[in-house]
């Protein structure tokens, strides 16, 4: 596969993901066109953790579906590993906002699904799935069904299900937004750990695009925070995060540097949030 070649000998550091002037418009049920994303330029380096923040409903998720190949841009280009995205690529993993584990499969079978879909033998798939279940701390729950798990545990299944495919590109769409605050902090730490260890067998860590509306979460996790404008979304500003790694999500947010960065980004993001709110208010009125 071409993507594999590119990864082995990066020609002058081709970025993992590149969006060039990408736009996406949907036809609404009433027949009108709704532009979710407009003229978007974004670059994600190899092994880079990028968090995308923006006002609610501005089109952050659409960015991810463009990169994943689930949707095609109406205009502009989306490149993964230097190649235009024409469909779903095998090196992409996607963690969804809502529960997307298969309710009729056991936990183990859910994690086995990816390798099985990709033609791995049953025995090997099972072995890899068990390994990942152990890493997310669910080894004892292999035979349960998703409805028998808590929300946090189901999210862990989703993480294992994604990581078992060894994705070079990891897309996450507000993955922890449905969890309570404590579980959320715990999951963030676990995510950083998995991310750091995912490619420990050699090669770089996965390149991550993490969409969230929680600025604290974004700063605590990412190397780079991208602020989106109120919809139709486009990049407003990019802030590098120079906090040292490894980070502990709970403690890092108490550091003075963190608060400094937070204030700086919020002055940019807050404006967009206000615009969105005012629009919402005028629509209601």
């Amino acid at each position, binding site marked *: 596969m071409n993507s594999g070649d590119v990864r082995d000998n990066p020609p002058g550091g081709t970025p993992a993901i590149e969006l060039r002037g990408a736009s996406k418009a949907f036809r609404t049920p009433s027949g009108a066109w709704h532009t979710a994303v407009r003229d978007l330029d974004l670059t994600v380096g190899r092994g880079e953790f990028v968090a995308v923040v923006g006002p609610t409903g501005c089109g952050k998720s659409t960015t991810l579906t463009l990169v*994943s190949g*689930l949707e095609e841009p109406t205009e502009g280009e989306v490149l993964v590993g230097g190649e235009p995205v024409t469909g*779903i690529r*095998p090196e*992409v*993993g*996607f963690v*969804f906002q*809502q*529960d*997307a*584990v*298969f*309710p*009729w*499969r*056991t936990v183990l079978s859910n994690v086995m*699904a*990816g390798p099985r*879909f*990709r033609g791995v033998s049953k025995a090997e798939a099972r072995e890899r799935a068990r390994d990942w279940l152990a890493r997310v701390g669910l080894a004892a729950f292999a035979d349960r*069904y*998703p*409805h028998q798990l808590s929300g946090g545990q189901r999210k862990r299944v989703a993480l294992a*299900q*994604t990581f078992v*495919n060894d994705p070079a590109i990891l897309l996450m769409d507000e993955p922890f937004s449905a969890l309570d605050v404590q579980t959320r902090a715990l999951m963030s730490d676990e995510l950083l750990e998995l991310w750091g260890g995912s490619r420990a067998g050699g090669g770089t860590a996965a390149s991550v695009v993490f969409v969230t509306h929680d600025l604290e979460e974004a700063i605590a996790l990412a190397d780079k925070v991208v602020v989106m404008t109120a919809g139709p979304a486009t990049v407003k500003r990019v802030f590098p995060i120079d906090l040292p790694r490894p980070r502990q999500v709970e403690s890092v947010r108490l550091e003075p540097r963190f608060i400094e960065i937070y204030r700086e980004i919020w002055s940019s993001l807050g404006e967009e949030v206000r615009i969105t709110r005012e629009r919402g208010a005028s629509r209601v009125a």
Partner: protein
Amino acid sequence: MSLESAESVGAPVALNMTMSRKEARARANRRRRLLVFATRVLLLVAFLATWEILARTETIDPFNFSMPSKVWDQIVQWTLHGTPQGSLGEQIGYTLYEALLGWIIGVTAGVALGIVLGRVRFLADVLGPYVKVLNAMPRIVLAPIFLIWFGLGVPSKVASAVVLVFFPVFFNAFQGAREVDRNLVANARILGASNRRVTLQVVIPSATSWIFTSLHVSFGFALIGAIVGEYLGAAKGIGLLVAASQGTFNTAGVYAAMVILAVVALLTEGLLTFAEKRLFRWKPGAPGER
């Protein structure tokens, strides 16, 4: 409160109290269930007794309305000495065979076509209006036509059962395939599933609960199809018993056939529920269960 402050002496007392409270609740529960059951039986007895008395006192015409004791005698007589058309078991067997065969064919066709049309937009758009027209037609009127086409034997009954079963199953399977959680499909595709795999491992499992709802109703429809077919003309079956009893002004016979049918339908319904429970272990139980 008292549980925490109580030392070695108080603790067993508190424990006893919770035990007895639990017991009291269980007892109340049992009593309630018994009451419901007893009232239920009483209602049936009252109904049958009223019927019997009214018929015996000739307040209602016993020839036209018959009475429970006569219906019972008729069932016993059929069971012990057979019906004019052969043994009772044979009649039930024929009806069940026709219904089951029609049901299996109807369900298979309904599920297959429902899933295909649910997945392939083009076919759904092309065939949509035709399906609607066929569904709007009262399909039981096809039974006489099937009788002409296929004769007095089993095939004409199977055919009328099939047309009755097909549509509800088809619509449910179609709806089920359409209403699959988009997230699940997207997840499967990202994980590497091909279109075929998405259909087999995501669409069909999520449509099963829709399909099963229709299976319950549709077995009843299969029985109706078989019975109506037999009633119109047949050599064997419960429908024929009804027709023959009606022809000889044997009201008790008609009722007896009805009772037998009800029992048969309830038994098959029970079997279906059992199968459903086995198949849906992955589903959270309804509140109060498990």
